[in-house]
């Protein structure tokens, strides 16, 4: 049976292609798949009814109790025959309902076939979760089918309504199913029913499952979606809303009743909701003018009927319910098909406009008569036999609840007769003031499916006693029968109460039809509110509530977001601190100072930090922030960490310069301060956070129980052959961190360049820059200043309007200054810069090489070299910067990263482990052997990358901004400041 399902979904996937080839006749080919399923089911029927179910179990994900478990017992057999059999007929009908050029027909055919497959899967599933899988698949497919006419707003809305409502129920059901499965310890339905769990949780679970079943079967209060779903093409209504999808809920009730039918929650819920739905929807059907809507409400009413009967929990009711379910499928589907035919042939389905169809479409008329007779419960139709059985079962039960329900069912049946007559009269009979409707006769293949089903209903009545053993095979699984002998289906039981009730129904129905105007008036007078409007109102309330919640939480303000984070942090940390009274922890050996000198930098830091908070000028604030950094560096130095101090000093210096460069483009002062109350609040939050972190630093040390691992560092440094622990940590022990951090630097460089350069539409340079040659714009006025678009912009040699000066022809301290205006030059600075530069470079290399054993390292060396570049730029302007290094920052950064990562890889290839160290003594003539280590290579990569980063920053924030400002000056605008940060 797995293959049959696969065939459905494969056919569904192929359907668009088939429709493209064969047009609407592709449906005939697709019909073969459900037809084969029907044939297969019939072939298994004898064995199944005899009590040997067909089954297969394939484990899927055992941890989640997912099993592909299929099992066909009698109930599944009957449902399969209905789903697949009617599915076959519907597909045949589709082949004539649509035209070849119907838009979206391929998709429709695929979805409909897929739906048939999902339905077959649903009724065959023997696993709760798997059942839910197919359940939701039918929901999704029905969404696509109901929304077939996508351009109609009503159709889209109806589809959304259907999927939302049925999924609401479906999800509730999922929880219920999981609760059942967990309570029973098995998710297999057959095992669950064999040993049903009990207890209050099971009650809740069943209630949730019923929410799903009721919503799927359009029982009140979920019934609203079904009438709207009539927006779908008629074959869809005929299949989904008569034979297939809505039957899923009823099927689930029937499926679980043998296990839980004696529980009050099960019985009372199904009986109450079923009966009320039957009466209310039947009442509504009585005044519909649209034939399809009349059927829709009729269907809701009948579904209520089925739910009540199948959930009643006695063996006879189960028998009667299943019979009724079959009868309903066989009479409701043809009626929908008939509506489709009428709509197709006349162009309307409003019963006020239809007249005389009895004569013009006799075959359709007689089909309808058969189906309606069955629906109204007239002998000798199948519907009659089933309804008799229902009345009998409820009457014999002796339970007062069932008797009360019986009253409701009879009233509902009266309405059923009434709207059946209304349908017959409205669709086919002559109306005095309406001219006979012009008809375009339907093709035989169009009518055949409906006629076949109508005839089945006719055969089903007399044959009911033959079918009795089949249906009884299911009914006998319900263990309770109120002490009665099992009832049997038959057309004639003699004169008894059920027969009397049937007659009463008929009489009542005739009366309702006789006074149909009054009924319609009363119906409108005592109408339930329009369900679709109620739904829209509910959705409106939910959405506007959601919007309010979102508006309250999603303020769009960065300060609020930060405030939330910090307040959460403080509140969440303060709770355990106070609860645990952390201050009572045994105090650590607090040493408040090592030398009193430390107080000076500490005081400077505190003062500068506080002052920075109040500063209004940006530059001033930056300088103050820098002072906290220098103060920290001093503290490091006093603590005996020269490496940290050196690095910190260098970084602070570079940062200051960078800030100054950037501040050229920002307003000199911060924007207007926020409200005073907000400032106080911010101050409180900030102070609380600071207090938290400071006190936690104390508590953390107070709580320490173990030695730190840093005790092992001196030995590690020794092992690595270095004397500088910091450096050994950076390039050897924790070189992996360093590798990560320099890639951070690389992305920072990329980001800086990206922000500044990418927005310009630029052309690539063809001519490469020649180091040592200098180009200066002839006239700055003409400067369209096309810069190179590479992320390392080299405005050298920008085409025609450039004079090139040979640097060697005109010896200068700094050749780049030629491009500077006179007032910006400073001879002394130039001379100093030129003299210092080589010294700085040598120093940087020195720091790089000696890092392993004394103060220094690649990072510090790189910054020093970068500072050299910075000096050249400050003294000589941007052209000088371009001339200083022939390499572009991208190349430096790239090579740096390649070298470090390459060293890391080499460690794995040549050594024992990634980043493993290696050494090589280089013997040069006349020199001491040079000890080259892989750590040095690694550090060299770091060095290059840092140089590249600083060069990149100077290119972007230095000369890049220079260029922008020059251009703006040429364009006659004042340098424009932008506020980019929030």
């Amino acid at each position, binding site marked *: 049976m797995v293959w049959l399902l696969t065939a459905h979904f494969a056919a569904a996937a192929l359907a668009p292609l088939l429709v493209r080839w064969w047009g609407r006749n592709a449906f005939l080919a697709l019909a073969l798949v459900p037809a084969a399923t029907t044939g297969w089911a019939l072939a298994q029927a004898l064995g199944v009814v005899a009590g040997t179910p067909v089954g297969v179990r394939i484990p899927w994900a055992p941890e989640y109790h997912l099993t592909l478990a299929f099992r066909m017992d009698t109930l599944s057999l009957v449902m399969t025959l209905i789903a697949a059999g009617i599915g076959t007929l519907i597909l045949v009908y589709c082949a004539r309902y649509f035209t070849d050029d119907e838009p979206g027909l391929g998709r429709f055919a695929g979805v409909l076939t897929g739906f048939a497959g999902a339905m077959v899967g649903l009724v065959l599933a023997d696993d709760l979760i798997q059942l839910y899988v197919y359940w939701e698949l039918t929901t999704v497919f029905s969404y696509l089918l109901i929304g077939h006419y996508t351009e109609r707003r009503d159709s889209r809305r109806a589809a959304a309504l259907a999927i939302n409502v049925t999924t609401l129920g479906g999800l509730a059901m999922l929880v219920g199913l999981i609760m059942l499965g967990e309570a029973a310890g098995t998710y297999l339905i057959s095992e669950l029913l064999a040993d049903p769990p009990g207890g209050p949780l099971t009650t809740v679970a069943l209630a949730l499952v019923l929410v799903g079943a009721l919503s799927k079967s359009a029982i009140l209060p979920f019934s609203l979606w079904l009438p709207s779903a009539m927006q779908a093409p008629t074959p869809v209504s005929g299949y989904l809303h008569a034979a297939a999808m809505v039957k899923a809920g009823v099927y689930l009730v029937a499926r679980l009743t043998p296990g839980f039918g004696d529980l009050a929650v099960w019985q009372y819920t199904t009986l109450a909701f079923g009966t009320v739905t039957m009466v209310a929807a039947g009442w509504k059907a009585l005044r519909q003018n649209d034939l399809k809507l009349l059927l829709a409400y009729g269907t809701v009413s009948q579904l209520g009927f089925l739910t009540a009967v199948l959930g009643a929990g006695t063996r006879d009711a189960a028998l009667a319910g299943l019979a009724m379910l079959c009868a309903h499928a066989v009479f409701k589907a043809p009626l929908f098909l008939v509506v489709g035919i009428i709509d197709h042939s006349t162009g309307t389905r409003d019963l006020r406009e239809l007249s005389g169809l009895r004569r013009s479409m006799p075959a359709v008329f007689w089909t309808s008569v058969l189906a309606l007779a069955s629906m109204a419960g007239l002998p000798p139709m199948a519907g009659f036999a089933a309804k008799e059985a229902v009345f009998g079962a409820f009457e014999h039960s002796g339970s007062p609840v069932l008797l009360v329900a019986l009253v409701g069912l009879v009233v509902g049946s009266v309405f059923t007769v009434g709207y059946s007559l209304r349908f017959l009269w409205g669709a086919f009979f002559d109306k005095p003031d309406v001219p006979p409707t012009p008809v375009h006769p339907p093709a035989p293949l169009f009518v055949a499916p409906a006629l076949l089903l109508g005839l089945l209903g006719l055969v089903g009545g007399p044959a009911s006693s033959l079918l009795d053993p089949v249906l009884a095979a299911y009914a006998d699984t319900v263990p309770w029968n109120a002490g009665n002998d099992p009832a049997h289906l038959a057309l004639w039981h003699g004169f008894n109460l059920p027969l009397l009730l049937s007659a009463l129904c008929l009489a009542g129905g005739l009366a309702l039809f006789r006074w149909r105007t009054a009924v319609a008036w009363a119906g409108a007078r005592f109408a339930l509110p329009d369900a679709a409007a109620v739904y829209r109102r509910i959705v409106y309330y939910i959405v506007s509530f959601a919007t309010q919640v979102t508006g309250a939480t*999603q*303020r769009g303000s960065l300060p609020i977001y930060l405030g939330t984070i910090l307040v959460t942090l403080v509140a969440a940390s303060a709770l355990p601190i106070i609860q645990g009274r952390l201050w009572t922890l045994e105090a650590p050996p607090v040493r408040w100072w090592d030398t009193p000198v430390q107080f000076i930098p500490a005081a400077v830091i505190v003062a500068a930090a506080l002052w920075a908070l109040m500063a209004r000028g940006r530059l001033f604030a930056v300088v103050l922030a820098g002072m906290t950094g220098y103060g920290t560096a001093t503290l490091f130095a006093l603590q005996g960490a020269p490496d940290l101090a050196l690095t910190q000093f260098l970084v602070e210096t570079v940062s200051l310069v960078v800030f100054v460069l950037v501040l050229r483009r920002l307003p000199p002062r911060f924007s207007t301060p926020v409200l005073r109350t907000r400032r106080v609040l911010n101050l409180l939050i900030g102070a609380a956070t600071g207090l938290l972190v400071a006190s936690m630093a104390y508590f953390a040390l107070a709580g320490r*129980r173990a030695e*730190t691992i840093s005790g092992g560092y001196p030995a590690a440094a020794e092992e690595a052959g270095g004397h500088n622990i910091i450096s050994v940590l950076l390039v050897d022990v924790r070189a992996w961190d360093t590798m990560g951090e320099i890639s951070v630097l690389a992305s920072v460089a990329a980001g800086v360049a990206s922000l500044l350069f990418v927005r310009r539409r630029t052309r690539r340079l063809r001519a490469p820059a020649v180091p040592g040659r200098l180009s200066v714009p002839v006239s700055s006025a003409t400067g369209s200043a096309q810069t190179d678009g590479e992320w390392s912009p080299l405005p050298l040699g920008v085409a025609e309007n450039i004079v090139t000066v040979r640097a060697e022809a005109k010896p200068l301290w700094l050749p780049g200054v030629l491009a500077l205006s006179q007032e910006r030059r400073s001879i002394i600075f130039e001379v100093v810069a030129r003299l210092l530069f080589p010294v700085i470079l040598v120093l940087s290399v020195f720091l790089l090489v000696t890092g392993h054993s004394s103060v220094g390292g690649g990072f510090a060396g790189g910054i020093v070299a970068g500072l050299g570049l910075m000096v050249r730029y400050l003294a000589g302007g941007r052209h000088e910067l371009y001339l200083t290094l022939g390499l572009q920052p991208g190349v430096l*950064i790239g090579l740096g990263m390649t070298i470090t990562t390459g060293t890391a890889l080499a460690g794995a290839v040549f050594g024992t*482990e990634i980043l493993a160290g290696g050494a090589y003594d280089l013997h040069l003539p006349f020199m001491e052997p040079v000890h080259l280590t892989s750590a040095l290579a690694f550090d060299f990569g770091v060095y290059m990358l840092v140089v590249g980063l600083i060069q990149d920053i100077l290119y972007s924030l230095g000369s890049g901004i220079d260029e922008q400002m020059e251009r703006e000056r040429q364009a006659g605008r004042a340098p424009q400041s932008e506020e980019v940060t929030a």
Partner: protein
Amino acid sequence: MEAFLHYLVPLPVVLPLFAAGLKFALGVRLQRLSQAVSVVALAAVLVIGLVLLFGVDAYGPQVVQVGGWEAPIGITLVADRLSTLMVTVSSAITLCVLVYSVGQGAADQEEATPLAIFYPTFLILVAGVSNAFLAGDLFNMYVGFEILLTSSYVLLTQGGTAARIRTGSTYVVVSLVSSVIFLVAIGLIYGATGTVNMAQLSVRLGELPVQLQLVLQVMLLLAFAIKAAVFPLSAWLPDSYPTAPAPVTAVFAGLLTKVGVYAMIRTQTLLFDNDALNGVLLWAALATMVIGIFGAMSQNDIKRLLSFTLVSHIGYMVFGIGLASLHGLSGAVFYVAHHITVQTTLFLVTGLIERRGGSTSLNDLSGLAKLSPMLGVLFFLPAMNLAGIPPLSGFLGKLGLLQAGVREGTPLAYLLVAGAVLTSLLTLFSIVRMWNYAFWRDPDDGRPVALGTLLESSEDDSVMGPSSPAGISVVGGTRPPIGIGGKAVMTSDVFPPLMLAATVALVVLGVAYTVFAGPLIGYSEATAAELLARTPYVEAVFPGGVR
């Protein structure tokens, strides 16, 4: 096999970095070679991830003591089931996104400049993500976070348009704050325990006074919860993600939040062995799910809507973490893998929608199913997957979590089950709304943008940013689609083949999770068992017991 396996562990970090270095050095030269380098690097990482996936499953956690320095002196990299799974899924995603962006860059004929920055930065991001997953050292995990965050700052502000910078600054500042909290927590933990090796911490943290443990745990969780966008720390996300170019948003949405989730899992299972905060996590999960999906309901912009569903579904994973049971964790792990994939896919599809329809606003879009049935299928499958429609992986993950919740059986767990179900329903509601508007409406009902329209970005495109009132997208506000480098994009009905291929590959990957649900769920379950046992991890790092 086993002996050589651990050599592979650092490669998911080193290879992308090496490739990024090459690409920086190449700059705008040799475009084809340069692109081949990145694709090959990420493809290699994917293969390595797959090999490790099977290897770790067979031989247990693989440990590398970097540079041969034994733990706890040196840095340890650990590939256990969880980190390997994360690395594998993320490399599959990043490879697809890379191919997509290559296609997009080529199609838009972007200038070489932005792309010369985009690709290496993207590779660095990938390396950072892998590093965060593989780190067996808390400080190194911080380094991993820094790598991925810094490159994400660059990627988010690509092109430097006003909108991107404005929203980018929210993202950058919030991320910096979370990093500072993380760093402070590391400092405090080092102060209290004297180590940052995670295996060693799993022992030493337990020796601290309980309430001190709790504060440290709270701080770490908060830092990660900001990254993972857990309510009430989630508001930054929908404000910052939507303005970035499609591939960037895709990888952010799919991956970056999950790094936070991953770190939360590690905190709750490896580092701290207590259940004191599980209740708090469950409440946070509930709020995240429900308030997140409320946000999605009222959005008119697809990107923003998807960002809210992203936040909301983070709640599912936190739900699993908070349950802290075998099934809860296994559900969370499976859901992480699923959600990375599906969310990335949806944002990539949104990129295609933008390209076809000229907008991502539901007010403008219409009739896409008719205009491009292909796009319809590509959207519908992952969208239904996100909504948790069976038998797609979103349903399987949800199923695992619901089962775990029901098994837990406490009132709070049932409340969470109800919240999860409600979230699932409202997700479907939002998706149906998107589908009804963008795909089903008659093409003339929206404000169709003609094919071949050049969608320029204006400097004052101030619509979707945090400046919009109350964070609700402004009706009628459309933000023109922008290429990777901030360049204008031409609407077209022909999708660049690479973009399409990458999207299709991801959709197929999402469906494959269902097909291979058996082994995948088995793997998640084994992962959860390994996490809860804690010993496999610790013993792999310290074979002779923790010193």
